[in-house]
């Protein structure tokens, strides 16, 4: 089966406070980088998955993202499925 690569980006929903992001933003100013008006911390999850075709891969990755990698109560996610599956790589 072909192997697909994907990256899932998980971010806090805009309505959810991100105290770690705020602390990091404060440190940016101490570094001398002024003008950082917004800094939110999320996660990038890199996944390699075997699937019959790109549609099947996307379906499995969406399930994975929505049910495990992100908690939709507090997080949003986006999926980047890389073009051109590298069969058997």
């Amino acid at each position, binding site marked *: 089966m072909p192997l697909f690569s994907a990256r899932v980006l998980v971010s806090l929903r805009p*309505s959810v406070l991100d105290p770690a992001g705020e602390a990091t933003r404060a440190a940016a100013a101490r570094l001398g980088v002024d003008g950082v008006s917004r800094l939110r911390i999320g996660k990038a999850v890199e996944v390699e998955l075997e699937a019959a075709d790109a549609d099947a891969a996307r379906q499995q990755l969406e399930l994975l993202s929505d049910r495990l990698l992100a908690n939709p109560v507090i997080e949003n996610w986006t999926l980047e499925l890389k073009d051109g599956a590298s069969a058997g790589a």
Partner: protein
Amino acid sequence: MTLGVVVFPGSNCDRDVRWAAEGCLGIPTRFLWHEERDLSGLEAVVIPGGFSYGDYLRCGAIARFAPLLQEVAAFAERGGRVLGICNGFQVLTEMGLLPGALTRNQKLHFLCEPTALAVQPGRCSWLQGYSAGEVVTFPIAHGEGRYQVEPDQLRALEDNGQVVLRYRRNPNGSVGDVAGLTNAAGNVLGLMPHPERACDPATGGVDGRRLLASLLG
């Protein structure tokens, strides 16, 4: 009456719960390893505090898929009494047995201190030993206890009497000062504070006793 106590890799309050229930109150307990599926003979189940599966990804996110918790969900559905303490509360929200989520404390500190809580027992079977408006002291010990839910959902929970425990002085930024929640039926309770650490006079106070003693009802 036997109380089941869930044990994940990374649980660390399982023995505290056993001591509080069995040592202090004489309630027999049985440890339930996360790969088991047998809940026979149990009247109630506690999901204790700790760091289930290292709390990788998110607190409680991986625990949700444990074979044992599939059975605990069915047990709760049948009306069985389930108590989630600290990490156990996080697990209950990840499982969807309770709404909302627990996130990083507002000021990022790990908080470990006695905390005053106002109780509104409502329908919650675990809290029937407390009177409405009573103030009790349980310790908290968490880094991710800031309860988060959308404002309209919070109002619905409040209107439905599901916000059963509130901080008197909000330590972590939880919306609505929420420290503990019950489900609509009242058989499931999740709370960040540790009632099992308030059962033995040697550890400071005994306000938590009545919560576990509700099992002797």
